[in-house]
């Protein structure tokens, strides 16, 4: 119980691991995450001198290298930033840090390799249990919570119809997320709802969307574009069929995958869809009264401006 109480406070100031995508194609996710944090009075300390977590690629060369990369990020957060909570908004980063935590605790062979590489590289090795990795959703949900959030909402999303898309890496495989599926209050790996909860508090109406955790083919966005286009089209059409005006995302890879293949489906398969794709932090930011510019809404490929103007959500462009 004491842990739960202190946890609340703990998340108000966390180490922030943006990752490579948030410095590139996912810049708007970084901007909007920081803006929402600032608006809510939450403090983000960027992990010092961080490196790439390995994304979806390095594990295919060797999973233990990926674990080493992720462990170095955790080691820096603990030893350089002196934090014991690391917040990663990118599903890929979040997943890899979680996986590193799990493997370091449960697989001696991985631990041996990580210790060896860390020593060779001349930095402190990360020990399982030194830090807790959380997603941006956990962060807002725990540090602020729905009650407080509803008090902070300045411009309700006024019934905007949203399909919440969580993707693969946030919930699978189950064993690397021991805190999920723990009953009321915890996140579910089969039917995740944290994004639904937050956006509903901000005034959105969450449509009944069956493909919340379907795969967008992000791993093969460029190397097997036809497969990715089919998968994305399936997700987008299901969201439209459910009545969604916006698909809310929580991952830069999913987000740019949906944007890219929405266009590709139109150009290559002749299937045009209209649903708008936005980061959940952009929607939340609008509701909290952050200026749209500061949320990077104009940087999205999927153009949200018409819909936002139509819904009178762009209150101060």
């Amino acid at each position, binding site marked *: 119980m004491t842990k739960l109480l202190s946890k609340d406070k703990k998340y108000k100031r966390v180490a922030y691991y943006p990752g*490579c995508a948030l*410095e*590139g*194609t996912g*810049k708007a996710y970084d901007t909007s995450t920081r803006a929402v944090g600032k608006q809510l009075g939450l403090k983000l300390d960027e992990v010092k*001198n*961080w*490196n*790439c977590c*390995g*994304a*979806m*690629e*390095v*594990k*295919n*060369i*060797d*999973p*233990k*290298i990926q674990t*080493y*990369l992720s462990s170095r990020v955790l080691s820096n957060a603990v030893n350089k930033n002196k934090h014991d909570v690391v917040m990663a908004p990118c599903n890929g980063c979040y997943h890899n840090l979680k996986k590193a935590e799990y493997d370091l605790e449960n697989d001696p062979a991985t631990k041996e*390799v990580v210790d*060896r*590489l860390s020593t*060779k*590289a*001349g*930095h402190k090795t990360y020990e399982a249990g030194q830090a807790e990795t959380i997603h941006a959703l956990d962060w807002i949900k725990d540090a602020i919570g729905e009650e407080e959030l509803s008090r902070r909402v300045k411009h309700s999303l006024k019934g905007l119809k949203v399909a919440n898309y969580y993707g*693969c*890496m946030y*919930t*699978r*495989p*189950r064993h690397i997320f021991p805190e999920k599926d723990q009953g009321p209050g915890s996140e579910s*790996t089969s039917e995740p709802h944290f994004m639904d909860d937050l956006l509903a508090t901000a005034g959105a109406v969450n449509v009944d969307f069956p493909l919340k955790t*379907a*795969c967008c*083919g992000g*791993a*093969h966005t*460029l*190397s*097997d574009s036809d*497969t*990715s286009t*089919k*998968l994305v089209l399936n997700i987008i059409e299901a969201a439209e069929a459910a009545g969604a005006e916006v698909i809310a995302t929580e991952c830069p890879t999913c987000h740019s995958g949906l*944007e*890219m293949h929405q*266009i*590709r489906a*139109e*150009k*290559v398969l002749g299937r045009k869809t209209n649903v708008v794709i936005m980061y959940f932090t952009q929607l939340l930011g609008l509701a909290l009264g952050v200026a749209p510019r500061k949320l990077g809404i*104009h*940087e999205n*490929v999927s*153009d949200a401006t018409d819909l936002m103007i139509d819904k009178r959500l762009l209150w101060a462009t």
Partner: protein
Amino acid sequence: MPIHEKSLIREENIRTRDDLVIDGVDVSGHWSTFIESRVVTDYNEDLEDQIAGLPGGENIHRCWQCGSCTNSCTVNALNADFNPRYWIYLIRTGMESELLRDKDIIWQCVSCNKCTYVCPREVAPEGVMKATAHWLELMGHTPKSPSTLFDEVFSEQVIKRGKIEESGIIRGFFKKTGQPLMQNWLTTMAFRLFKKLPFGMMFHMAKSTIFRPKTKGWRKSQLAIEDYIIEQDTKHRKLLGLDKPTSPTPQASNDNATSTLVEAAE
């Protein structure tokens, strides 16, 4: 008897006589459908150990063939020939030639981990797919898949600099696979993006192409990782019997999955 689950049997193994009368009974058409009998003699008894020795394949022996992986599989829903349960069966029974018939699609696993999520035996079928794709390339059965080429371009940059710069990776990948950068959907996307981008953002993007992001003091990590790659590559080649220069390695011209990274390391 008609075969109801035809979709599960390879078409070329199904025989149907259009014209057949047995003991005066006309059994033409689907009444005479049967499956071609076959005799398997070319087992590769090392196949399971080889796959199990590559990263991701470690738990293949735990599979009890329930089929949950295939049932949940993202790619199987698009292509019924993509069948993780079946491939695990073939690997465990050593039916290499049968496995090779699907060699060109195994790399298409999108790592969604639905299989690993549902597998009751903790086989981690996603890892087995990666190990199998890796095995096919190491043995020279397939050229490097586009996915492997992408992984390599990406990993090379991470190992060298600690961070990646996306546009560099995309350019590198298109070059490596001989694709034009100007595909109509990509240009449409770039156009839509640039039309709206403020000057600051363009500046930011241009800056990261010129001053490519790098983690400070990364050199020692780079060397540690490269040593490890060479060590693992040597181990894998030994396991697959590819370390003996005298043995005629299958399609020796086909460079394997890690060699570029090792070359980069040297």
